[in-house]
């Protein structure tokens, strides 16, 4: 039964993708319904699968040997991912309603864009699902790659120069990330002859060069998870992607990197080498750097989705730091893990809701504005930990860290929450500034409301282990809540203070503008090297041809000797006879 459901869960997105292709060639353009209910349903079987229970599958025929599992980690992960994808699909149905009308009216560009998006959406979903349930390297890598590359189409959707740039940044970093991941996996798998993620984890913990493999994997997966330095694609890609795509990109897909870490890094393993602990520290520092840096940079952004992208970086920074904790003090990990999952799940839904909110604020339904913007802000407030599920997840983390006396980290996390609050404030503020009335669709705001609700009650539906969700005791509430008002205040103060001054906002994508000239120089160098190779070869060929021509000329002159030999046949015969006789005598006498 579960296997059947698994098959359906994985094949259904393919069927959906196939149906979009079918429609493209068989249904006339004006009747084509790109975001049909069939399309929306792509993630449903997977969502169902997450609630069936824990299972294992071994499929020998699959690539290098398939080993899939729904366990304590992957099941909740699958649940929130599939849920987010389902909600985002609903949202998309509303979001793209206008574009669909254009397409049906005969706009070829709109047709093309929608066609592309609806084809790659289920494929991206498929990759995401596969990497969650995969416990063998090949499947994980397949899922990861499929998701990564198919998502390119989601990012590039509207085809504007900004979108092209965002998609390019995304793709370049994705390729680098894939390379790093492959390198890490190869190294680990080659060292210990394993094909499963668990085997990789064990190898990382025990092998001589484990820390380097871990570093490769951490960085490679970190591209997706927005580790500082590799995060540049997020603020470039998110603002340009359509809101539902941003929602899944930021909610579900960047979590794939985190899931990868949880799967392969030897978190919580005992007896780690000092180098590994060192790596943990680096991860910790990088995480917090991202958490704070993104907040400080993000509040200046103009585009609400760019702000949200930095918020994602910041949030992922916190999660990165928690992963670092898992390496530095392994003992804490067992209790920390459920909290991290909850954190991730909550962030996924909340961030999804926030991104959908940006589209809602652009097409506001005829609701009272304060209510609307309260609702828009709500998942953000939850993210800061001041409310509902956010509070639970914050407490879950703090609780685990308290137990192992990691006060410093708690302090830093709390400060980071201030950043979160600031970013949320900035985002809502920007949305308010850029709000638009009209063009709303019930699917659009309906899905958004569902996401909002789901985000607020995350612990209720997330299939976490028993008793892993602890309600924060009342006396801690202040400690959890206080960053929110502080963050809001700081932004308000900042905005008021800088109201008159004309500071141009820094470009989104920060380090990209450093990387890209360097990369361009590198590529042009490679091109010129290739050109030089070609030129060198051409010269050598020309030289060879020239010498060949000279030799041929000489040869032709030499061949005149043929006529000479013909003339002097008799004399040559005499000479040969004499020569032979002389040789024979010479040898004989």
């Amino acid at each position, binding site marked *: 039964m579960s296997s059947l459901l698994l098959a359906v869960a994985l094949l259904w997105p393919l069927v959906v993708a196939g149906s979009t292709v079918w429609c493209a060639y068989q249904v006339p353009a004006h009747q084509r319904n790109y975001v049909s209910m069939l399309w929306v349903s792509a993630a449903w079987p997977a969502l169902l699968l997450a609630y069936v229970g824990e299972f294992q599958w071994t499929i020998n025929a699959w690539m290098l040997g398939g080993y899939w599992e729904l366990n304590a980690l992957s099941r909740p992960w699958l649940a929130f991912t599939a849920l987010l994808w389902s909600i985002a699909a609903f949202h998309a149905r509303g979001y793209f309603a206008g574009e669909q009308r254009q397409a049906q009216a005969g706009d070829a560009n709109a047709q093309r864009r929608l066609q592309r998006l609806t084809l790659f959406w289920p494929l991206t979903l498929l990759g995401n699902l596969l990497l969650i349930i995969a416990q063998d390297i090949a499947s994980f890598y397949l899922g990861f790659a499929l998701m990564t590359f198919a998502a390119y189409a989601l990012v590039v959707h509207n085809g504007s120069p900004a979108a092209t740039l965002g998609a390019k940044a995304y793709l370049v970093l994705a390729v680098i990330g894939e390379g790093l991941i492959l390198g890490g996996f190869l190294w680990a798998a080659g060292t210990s002859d394993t094909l499963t993620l668990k085997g990789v984890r064990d190898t990382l913990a025990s092998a001589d060069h484990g820390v380097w493999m871990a570093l490769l994997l951490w960085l490679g997966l970190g591209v997706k998870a927005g580790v500082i330095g590799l995060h540049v694609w997020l603020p470039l890609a998110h603002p340009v992607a359509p809101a539902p795509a941003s929602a899944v990109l930021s909610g579900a897909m960047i979590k794939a990197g985190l899931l990868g870490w949880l799967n392969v890094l030897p978190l919580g393993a005992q007896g780690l080498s000092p180098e590994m602990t060192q790596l943990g520290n680096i991860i910790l520092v990088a995480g917090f750097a991202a958490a704070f840096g993104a907040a400080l940079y993000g509040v200046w952004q103009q585009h609400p989705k760019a702000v949200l992208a930095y918020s994602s970086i910041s949030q992922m920074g916190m999660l990165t730091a928690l992963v670092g904790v898992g390496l530095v003090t392994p003992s804490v990990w067992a209790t920390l893990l459920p909290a991290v999952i909850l954190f991730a799940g909550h962030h996924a839904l909340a961030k999804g809701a926030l991104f959908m909110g940006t589209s809602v604020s652009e097409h506001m339904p005829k609701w009272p504005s304060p209510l609307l913007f309260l609702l828009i802000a709500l998942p953000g407030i939850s993210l800061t930990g001041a409310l509902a599920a956010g509070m639970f997840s914050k407490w879950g983390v703090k609780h685990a860290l308290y137990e192992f006396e990691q006060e410093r980290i708690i302090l830093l996390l709390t400060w980071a929450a201030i950043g979160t609050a600031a970013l949320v404030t900035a985002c809502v503020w920007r949305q308010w500034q850029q709000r638009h009335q009209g063009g709303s669709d019930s699917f659009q705001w309906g899905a958004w409301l569902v996401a909002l609700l789901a985000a607020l009650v995350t612990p209720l539906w997330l299939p976490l282990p028993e008793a892993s969700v602890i309600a924060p005791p009342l006396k801690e509430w202040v400690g959890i809540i206080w960053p929110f008002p502080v963050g809001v205040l700081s932004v308000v103060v900042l905005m008021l203070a800088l109201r008159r001054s004309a500071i141009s906002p820094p470009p989104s994508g920060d380090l990209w503008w450093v990387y890209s000239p360097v990369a361009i120089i590198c590529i042009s160098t490679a091109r010129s090297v290739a050109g030089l190779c070609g030129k060198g070869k051409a010269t050598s060929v020309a030289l060879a041809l020239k010498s060949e021509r000279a030799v041929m000329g000489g040869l032709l002159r030499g061949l005149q000797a043929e006529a000479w030999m013909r003339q002097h046949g008799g004399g040559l*015969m005499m000479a040969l006879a004499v*020569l*032979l*006789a002389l*040789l*024979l*005598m010479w040898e004989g006498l």
Partner: protein
Amino acid sequence: MMWRFGLYDPSFDPLWMTHWALAGALLLPIMAGLLGAIFRPSRALPVVLACMPILVAGVLMVIDYQQAGLLRWQWVIGDIEFTLRFSGLSALMLLITQWTAAAVAMYTPGYLRLTYPDLNNRWIWPLMGLLVSALSLIWLAADLLTLYAALEIMGLAAVGMLLLSGKPAALKAGMRYLLLALVGSLAFLLGIALLLSQWGSLNLAVLVELVEQEPITWVAAALMGAGLALKAALFPLHGWLTPVHENAWTPVSALHAALVIKASLYILILLWSILLPETLLAPRLIAWLGMLAIVWGGLVAWRADSLKTLIASSTVGQLGYLMVAFPLLLGPGIAPLPLALAWDGFWLHLMGHALAKAAMFMAAGNLIIATGESSLNALAGTSRRLPLSLLIFGIASVTLMGLPPSAGFTAKWLLLQSMVLTQQWVAVAALMAGTLLTAAYVFRVFRYSFDETAPRHDYQPLAPGMDLIALCLAVAALALGLLAHLPLALLHGGGA
């Protein structure tokens, strides 16, 4: 060495039927030739019928040889002794002669009908018969008198055939050939004279016993070597060859290149084996000349711009392969294994070349008839119109290039292995270079023929079977490579 040529006493006398077979093999060609002169066959069928008894005679002799081993005939007529021997080598050469000549004869009527339909062409038949008889006699002869007479008859018949086309260029070429061939045989005769006066016998088997290494042997060997080298067109005495082949009729060129020059070479290697066993320098000289021949023939062929010149020059290069094998066959201190390898390779190459060269000449002849021109430029577009002729040319050239699977390859393999074993690296290099040069000139032909930019439409149709005969020869040359152990078994059958 001597058992290889069958110069020992046989254990059995020939059967009565073998006598008849011998008579048939030696005389029937002449008679068939005379018949041909009378009836002037214009189709292949009567020629096939005429060839049949000759071929049967040859096969019968080979069968007898396989049953009885070496066959020997000896007649004494007025104090003059005539000796014939039929060894494995003779068997092979006889077969190759008869079958190649038969193929050429079958090709001839169609060729003549298309090109030279006048009365004069009847003379080709008796000359061809005479040539085949003389060749058969050479392979069988075991005394110098018979050898000399047969060589002379062959030479004159060959000259006659080459002159038949009657073109001024052909006459000139034939004149040069005539003069040089005559002088070459006089040098040969002078050698015989020295031998006869010193050892008092013309019988090769006797000479084997008597000959000692002394200056008179050497001078005789040198004279014979030079004379036969001239007749065999060994480099650098090959100058007469190219014009002769270029201007003669195609079947004549085919026969000449395939067999006639090989006969002189055969006599050369036979006599030197007797006179100069275990000699270092003279065979070395021949080998060095052979290396030059490979390169030179290849170069001339490469730069040639007429098809027949190309093929004729290629003969010079191909003879070089055989010359290179001289030190391996005659040199001192050659171990039995490389000697055997070189021996097999030598004859295999000779046979393969005979078949392939005949096929190549015929294919080229067909191309020339069809296009009406003999220059390479005229070949443009032939790959579309005359694919079969070109394919035959290709198959034949596989043998010449020594690419597998062909007799040329297997022979080259054997020679190479022998050279490697005796560490003659320069010869190895020459063989390698020869392969490349051969490929260069062969593919030049194909390059022209694949050119589709010059469309021509006026191709003369060929007579039926002309391509087929050539194809059979070419394929035989290929098959000889894969089935090399069959002829080589015959070659070994005599004494091992």
